[in-house]
């Protein structure tokens, strides 16, 4: 049976050899393709598998006041994220997370939608997870593959009860989708914080630092298997600490002084332009914005009619009232339009064309010269004075002191106000459609003239130093100085400066002065100022006081505005006086000397 023989032709054997060889050659070719030709691609894929980069957030730079007192620092909160690709049964895991954290599935899914960037990237599902709940997650880690938590720095304001400074610091909020798309830096991710106002926004790039990365070795189930040996972690670069020119003691004092009022205060160091105090009331408590802002908290502030989020010191536009008369006085003296002996008889009203313009004191000031007119704030004097010149002359001097321009303070937005000139009026009302009578409004700071409190503070600061044109600033720069060639000077005649100093001194210190009740009796302090009352068609006038005070070598300038509060002399000046006394350390009993 087994005798049957076989004789396979050699060609058949060779074909068999050939088929086997070809099959093995196909295998080898594909291995060559994968292992040699595409080696780098697969190397990357393998690394992508095993290495999970974990972001380490950089601590944001701290913010200090001029004396080194911390006004903004950091604390850590925990956030919980998921990597969908590494999750097992998503449904079950989301239910577990919701249970452990005491959240609803809806909350978790809403967050997931918001922060999802792709299957392989962590997406935040819960923020500010308390430590006890976090430990529940940690205990059940084995049943929650693809779930991880990380520390996230948020702001802490250690001295917020004494000093709020919310409008200076601004706040942080989560970066929006639009900002993410626009941002040139790819270092921002959804859920990251970005400065939204104030210093936080202005110096965002310096404050935020640079994120770092940890490289975790993970297995196929997303379990952490230690650190990757062949990659050194990238440590985060903390943000730069910033020192502000703010005097938090004065800032806090002023904030409390204006409690319940609506208004703005700017106090400047006249030498450096450093802002000692910047208060806008009402404001908002920083603590409400320290971490993730709740929607209803946010809406509460946005919808508040008193506009607590609005920084009145740089954005609020107000008619300057009589405080701006100093510009006319300067113009008159510089151009020789009138001399100090030129007098006007004030009867309490002034007729121009078919209109009657009143003085604020209805019974009139009697015979006044320039000095009296400033100290007593006589309108009629200035109505007459301005008839001798034109709008563009007035505009020239207003512009010289920075009106109509941004102050250049290091905050993200600013309003430059309106300082009318001939071109502006022609544009607004049409050529020859406005009369010179309009000048009567401008000269007493009404009509189209609109200024911000910071412009007013800088104006009076330039007067205080006899022409040093400072730029208000909040950040202490190490090698900054107004000495030497850098200094921009407003050059006026010495006699003009002398006169303005005398006049502003009289406003506060002469018995006829509009701010006499706010004088400071301490002989070491020279307190100058000018009151103003910005007429407001919508209600009570806005009260202004601008002024400067010198004690020894140190001079500070301030502007103070109270909305709808009556006259500058009665309501604004007394508060300004208290701020000055507080700054120079005058004891309480002297304060009440008015």
């Amino acid at each position, binding site marked *: 049976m087994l005798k*049957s023989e076989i004789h396979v032709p050699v060609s058949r054997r060779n074909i*068999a050899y050939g088929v086997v060889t070809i099959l*093995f050659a196909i*295998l080898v070719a594909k291995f*060559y393709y994968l292992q040699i030709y595409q080696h780098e691609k*697969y190397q990357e*894929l393998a690394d992508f598998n*095993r290495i999970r980069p974990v972001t380490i957030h950089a601590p944001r730079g701290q913010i200090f006041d001029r004396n080194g007192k911390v006004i903004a620092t950091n604390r850590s909160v925990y956030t919980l994220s998921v990597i969908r690709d590494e999750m097992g049964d998503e449904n079950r895991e989301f239910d577990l997370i919701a249970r452990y954290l005491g959240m609803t599935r809806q909350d978790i899914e809403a967050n997931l939608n918001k922060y999802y960037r792709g299957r392989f990237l962590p997406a935040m599902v819960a923020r500010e997870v308390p430590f006890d709940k976090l430990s529940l997650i940690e205990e059940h880690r084995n049943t929650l593959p693809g779930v991880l938590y990380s520390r996230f720095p948020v702001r802490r304001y250690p001295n917020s009860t004494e000093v709020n400074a919310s409008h200076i610091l601004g706040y942080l909020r989560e970066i929006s989708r639009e900002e993410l798309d626009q941002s040139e830096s790819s270092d921002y991710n959804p859920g990251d914080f970005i400065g939204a106002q104030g210093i936080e926004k202005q110096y965002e790039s310096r404050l935020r630092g640079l994120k770092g990365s940890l490289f975790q070795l993970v297995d196929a189930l997303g379990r952490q298997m230690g650190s990757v040996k062949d990659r050194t972690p990238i440590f985060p670069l903390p943000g730069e600490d910033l020192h502000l020119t703010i005097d938090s003691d004065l800032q806090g004092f002023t904030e409390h002084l204006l409690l319940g009022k609506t208004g703005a205060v700017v106090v400047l160091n006249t030498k450096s332009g450093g802002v000692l105090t910047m208060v806008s009331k009402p404001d908002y408590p920083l603590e409400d914005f320290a971490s993730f802002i709740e929607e209803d908290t946010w809406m509460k502030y946005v919808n508040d009619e008193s506009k607590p989020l609005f920084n009145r010191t740089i954005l609020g536009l107000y008619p300057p009232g009589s405080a701006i008369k100093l510009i006319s006085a300067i113009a008159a003296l510089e151009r020789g339009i009138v001399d100090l002996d030129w007098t006007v008889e004030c009867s309490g009203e002034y007729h121009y064309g078919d209109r009657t313009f009143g003085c604020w004191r209805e019974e009139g000031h009697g015979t006044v010269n320039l000095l009296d007119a400033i100290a007593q704030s006589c309108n009629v004097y200035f109505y007459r004075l301005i008839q001798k010149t034109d709008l563009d002359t007035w505009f020239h001097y207003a512009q010289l002191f920075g009106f109509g321009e941004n102050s250049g303070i290091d905050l993200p937005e600013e309003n430059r106000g309106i300082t009318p000139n001939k071109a502006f009026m022609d544009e607004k009302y049409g050529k020859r459609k406005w009369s010179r009578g309009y000048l009567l409004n401008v000269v007493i700071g009404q009509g189209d003239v609109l200024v911000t409190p910071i412009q007013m503070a800088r104006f009076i600061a330039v007067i205080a130093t006899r022409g040093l044109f400072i730029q208000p600033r909040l950040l202490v720069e190490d090698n900054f100085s107004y000495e030497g060639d850098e200094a921009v000077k407003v050059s006026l005649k010495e006699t003009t400066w002398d006169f303005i100093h005398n006049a502003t001194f009289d406003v506060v210190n002469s018995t006829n002065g509009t701010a006499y009740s706010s004088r400071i009796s301490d002989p070491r302090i020279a307190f100058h100022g000018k009151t103003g009352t910005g007429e407001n068609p919508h209600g009570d006038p806005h009260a202004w006081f601008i002024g400067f005070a010198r004690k020894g070598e140190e001079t500070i300038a301030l502007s103070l505005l109270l909305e709808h509060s009556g006259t500058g002399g009665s309501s604004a000046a007394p508060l300004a006086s208290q701020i000055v006394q507080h700054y120079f350390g005058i004891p309480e009993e002297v304060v009440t000397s008015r």
Partner: protein
Amino acid sequence: MMHLLDKLKEAPLRWLFLALILNVFGLIALYSIGINAGELSLSSRFFKHLLWLVPSLAAFIFFLAIPTKIVHKYAYLAIGVIFVTLFLPYMTGPVAGTYRWISLKGISFQPSEIMKWIIVIALARYLSDYNLKIKNIRSLVLPIMLVLIPAAVIIKQPDLGSAMIVIAPIIPLLYWVGARPLHIFVLLAPILSVVTAFNYYSFIAWILLVAVVLYLSNTTFKVKFSNFFANIFIGLLAPILWAQLKPYQQERFLVLLDVSRDPKGAAYQVIQSQTAIGSGGFLGKGWGEGTQTHLKFLPEQETDFIFSVIGEELGFIAVCLALFLFAILILDLIRVAYHSSERFSSLILIGIAALFLSHIFVNVGMTINLLPVKGLPLPFMSYGGSFLVSCYAMIGLAMNMSIETVE
């Protein structure tokens, strides 16, 4: 009857050495897998695989020693018995939802595993007993039925991979006994008709080729005509056949065309295997250093994807060496089969070569996405005791058949 030692002297011992070297490759990979898992105990797969060498070598000796006459005599009985055992899983109940395993008292056993090579022996006997007019296409029908019936049962288990392996040796065996190329073509044509039917243009091109080949062939018009339309018919049936596949089986075919279509599902294993192999590069990441292996990204790394472990840790060099050894083994089996003048022995050698080749090509092809993922082990390397035993048994049988028995 020759004495065992005499047989060992005469038989090509190099096949055993090749088997042992390839076995060492598997052990190296299993050791690496175990070393990082910290489980190199006696119960680890490395040691178990090593221990399986004992029954394996016993099976090797048994099939080396068994007289050819006995093999020939009981071939049909054996296939009958094994055929019956294919139905036993339906009595013992399903394992993991399929009827592939007979599970008794914790020991499970896959009858189709044995069917693979019993069929080779039975076919060898049939094709050597009847020196049929093999060139006549009608004489091919019986051996084909011998293969297709068990294959049909195995498909139903369901185990498409094993069924294909059961069918695979018939083509080389028929070829070896002198089937005309046209007959091979006619046999293979329906398969290609199904495959090409997935695309309109490929099907048209294929049918045109069939027409040309049949037209040039030296057969009757009736044969030409019936074959041509049979292929078109089968091609048209393809969508129906496709619908018969389980969704996971369909996915495995589709993944071949586009790995990215389902990275978490069907393609996951293939992607991770290719990543392991590709990232290994020329020299590999080093023994025990394969990240894909040790961080468990590579699935089934001890069994189906053990060759990917070699590729990742020992690199292209080791891959080529292993493939070279496999190729040498198969080519040498063919060479000896060619020199054997005894029809039965020669056919068994060719059948065994075909079985090894199909396992190697399907398994390795799967790790590099040349072929769909099929749960076929790699001879001598994949962890799995019963398969290792059958591989050594086949080496024993092949060495046995290589000896000219002149009685």
